[in-house]
Every structure is written in structure tokens, then in C-alpha cells.
């Protein structure tokens, strides 16, 4: 009986493991967009949803798919309350860039890895900025988007540490099977 159950349960585990990156992205979006402003709204919340996209796009691109990036972007748009589609486009474009330059980004380590993520986050913020500029037909102030970029890079290290732990415990186990 146990032998019969094992393949099914292991398949369920694999499916769960495959969905973990998407769930982590959605969770990041949810946490970042809780409408609680510490420090009186002086600093914007980081783009926590971007970190799982970047991390799993490098580590397991078969699990962080373009569709997953699109879904996380739509979630960010819904939760952030801004004009629809802005963050979706920004996330997808960042994904495209990171996917194309995967070898370059994946080879980075230490502080340079943070710089690499900063470059990816800059693409995200720049995409969102110029999309907004195109939608409103004028350039919004730069300071808020730069603050967002700075906060996202600042939160990269703790967030990617958590993502790494989740990867090793939940996703990494099924890595060899796929």
C-alpha cells in the first residue's frame, strides 16, 4: 500500500515544489503591499515580488517561467493600486533581460551579486517609470522611483536569503528529477 502511495505523493510534492517560486513571488507581492506605512510614508515599500523572479530565473528557470513572472506582475499591479499593467510589463521585461543574460548574472557572487540584482531592479524601475511617462504624457518625479529602487536593493540580501532557504528545503530536493 505504501509502495502504491509513494509515486502519487512524490508527484504531488514535485508539483508543490514547482509552484513554490510562484507562491513565493505572490507572497512577496502581498507582504510588500500591505498598506501599512512605517516612517510615515517617507520610504516606499520594496519590490519583494521581484526577488523570487530574479532568484529562480537564475537558479531554476524551468520553475520561474515567463507566465509565472506575468502572474506575479499582475498581482503587483492589483495590490499596489497603480495603473494596470505597469508593473506587469516591468517584471516581464526584467525577466526577459535576466533570462537572456542568465550565465552572466548567475556567475556573480558576494557584493557583485547585489550589484547584479541592482541592475535588474533598475531595468524594472526604469520600465515602470517610462511606461508611466508614456501613459500620463509627462515625466513623473524621479525621487520616488529611485527610493523604490534603493529599498528593493536594500531588501535583496535578506529576501534572497529566505528564498535560498526555501529553495534548499522545498524546491532543491526535486531538482535532480526534472
Amino acid at each position, binding site marked *: 500500500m505504501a509502495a502504491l502511495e509513494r509515486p502519487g505523493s512524490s508527484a504531488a510534492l*514535485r508539483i508543490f515544489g514547482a509552484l513554490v517560486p510562484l507562491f513565493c513571488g505572490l507572497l512577496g507581492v502581498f507582504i510588500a503591499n500591505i498598506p501599512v506605512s512605517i516612517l510615515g510614508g517617507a520610504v516606499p515599500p520594496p519590490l519583494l515580488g521581484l526577488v523570487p523572479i530574479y532568484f529562480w530565473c537564475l537558479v531554476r528557470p524551468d520553475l520561474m517561467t515567463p507566465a509565472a513572472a506575468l502572474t506575479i506582475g499582475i498581482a503587483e499591479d492589483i495590490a499596489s493600486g497603480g495603473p494596470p499593467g505597469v508593473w506587469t510589463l516591468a517584471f516581464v521585461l526584467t525577466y526577459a533581460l535576466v533570462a537572456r543574460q542568465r550565465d552572466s548574472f548567475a556567475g556573480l557572487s558576494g557584493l557583485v551579486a547585489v550589484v547584479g540584482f541592482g541592475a535588474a531592479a533598475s531595468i524594472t524601475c526604469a520600465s515602470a517609470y517610462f511606461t508611466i511617462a508614456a501613459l500620463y504624457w509627462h515625466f513623473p518625479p524621479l525621487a520616488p522611483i529611485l527610493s523604490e529602487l534603493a529599498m528593493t536593493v536594500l531588501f535583496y540580501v535578506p529576501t534572497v536569503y529566505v528564498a535560498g532557504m526555501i529553495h534548499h528545503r522545498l524546491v532543491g530536493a526535486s531538482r535532480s528529477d526534472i
Partner: protein
Amino acid sequence: MANAWKIARKSNAQLPLVIVIALAIVLVLLGKAQSGLFDQARARVTDWMAPALVKVRAPIQGFDRFVGSITEIFSVYEQNLKLKEENARLRQWRNVATVLQTRVSRYQTLLHAVPDPKLNAVLAQVIGRASRPFLQTMVLDAGKQHKAMPGQAVVDARGMIGRIYLTGQRTSWVILLTDLNSRIPVTIASAAGGSGNIQAMMTGDNTAMPVLDIVSRLTTLHSGDQVVSSGDGGLLPAGLPIGTVVEDGSGGWRVALLADPASSQDVEILNFSQPPEALPPGAQLPAEAAGLKPMVTPPPPVAVAPPPPKPVVVARPAALPPDAQSEETAE
């Protein structure tokens, strides 16, 4: 099973990147055409989070105060001096206001002035704030259940904060005056009392002080001029205090807001709906009130013999007081 999963994953290769990018662009365009695309989802998520937000509100508020007190502790002495000076000035103004209020009341009594209709208001608490690069908003704990509707003005004790743009069952999202999407028609009353009221459009640009777009280029503004809502369009009541005019250093003008959305906790949602202006009944038309006969459109001419001339009658006010009538008769 593992192979099947692997094959399935590979065969889907998931949506090609180009298609996903195209979908994202379509979403942007769709969002431009229909800005309320995600509104229902947003309202539901906020409604669902409302109880948790209410619970975390107190500790977050306490933390904010603590952080604020740390930064302000070094300027307590200066602030105290400024407040004392301002308090003395405000006491003088209170006396002036009391005298003026009495005078206005007397004038209103003399003129039988109809008082402005009182605005219905819903008291709400701020349970959330979001300061994103392209959206500055706050979440209130009043929604459709409390008759909050999109477009209604939100004010605190100091002045207008913004207006509601999305309502759930128990929560509402407020678009702040500083937000990129905020455009409010305003009236600028000159502090010097020289050039009368100036109409303008106040536009948020995600900075602390919204920009003033003056409708007429011939007018001149001065720092310190008062900015209030004009009521144009009928969405907002006229005369809501908003802020004062300040020069931005590059030849433009901005508004220093009276209200501080970052620190507001209790706000009011003004339920204002301007009724369509009805025509006054015939007896209240100015000509009637003056005792003149209203002009009636003459009927089309009929081919008959002209009537004999009548004596000319001078119109006279019908409601003259008896003593005035007697004086006229005596003359």
C-alpha cells in the same frame, strides 16, 4: 510520472516570452482604456484585510510616533517658541473672527439669507497607507455599507486630504491630493484682497506640494494666498480649505497643503451631491419681485382691426409698504 511532468513542462515551454511581453503590453493599453480594470479585486482584497489592518493600526501608529519623537526631540525648544508665538497670533485672529461672525449673522438676518445646506459626513479611521512611486493613497474603514461613494471628499480637522476613488463593502481607498492622478478645481482667494478670486486647477505630481495650473495667465498670485475647492463640476463642495500658495522657485506656483495625510488618523467623508439647480417659480423672478409684469411672448398677429388706444399705465411695485404707498399717493 516524473517523466510525464518533465515532458509536460518542456512541451508547454511555458508561454513564449514574446507572447508574454505582448500580453503585458496589451494589459497596459487595456488599463489605459479602462482604469478600473482591477478595482473589484483591489476592493475585495482590502475588505478581506481590513480586520487585520485595524488590529495592527495601533502598534504601527505607536511606532510611528516613537520614531517621530526621536527626530523631533532636538527641535522641541524651537517648536515650543514658535507655537507660543503662533498661539498668541491666533488668539487675536479668534477675536476678529468672533466679531466678523456676529456681523455676518446680523447681515444674514437682515437679508433673510438661506444658510448653506449642511453636509452629511461619515467619520472614518485611517487603517492603512501606501506610498508607492506612482500612487499615494490611504485606506479608510468605511465603505459602501457606510454610504461612502467614489468621488466624495475626505477631510481632516485641518483641511482636505483627497477624495475617494474606490470603495469596497467595508473599506475605501483615498486618492491623495498629492497623487499623480489628482486634479481638483480650486479657487484662490488673494490674501492681499486685491484681485478677487482666481480659478485654477490643482494637480498632484507625487511631491508634497501639488502644482497650480492657473486658468488665466493675466492674474498674479502671491505667496500666502488661500486655496479652497471651487466646487466646479459639482463633485466637491465649494470652499473646502486646501492650503496656501507658495512659489516653487522656477516661476511656477504650488500649494502647501493644510492637512498632513501622513499623520491624519480620523477623517470625515463628505457626502456631497449638488442638486440640479431648479428654476425659481414665476413669482420669485426678479422682474416679478420688482412688481413688473413678466414679458410674455406676443401671439402671432391676426388680421383684425386695431383696438382703440388705451391709457398708458405705469407699472408700480405691488408690495410697497403702506406708508410708502401713502407717500406716493400724497405726491
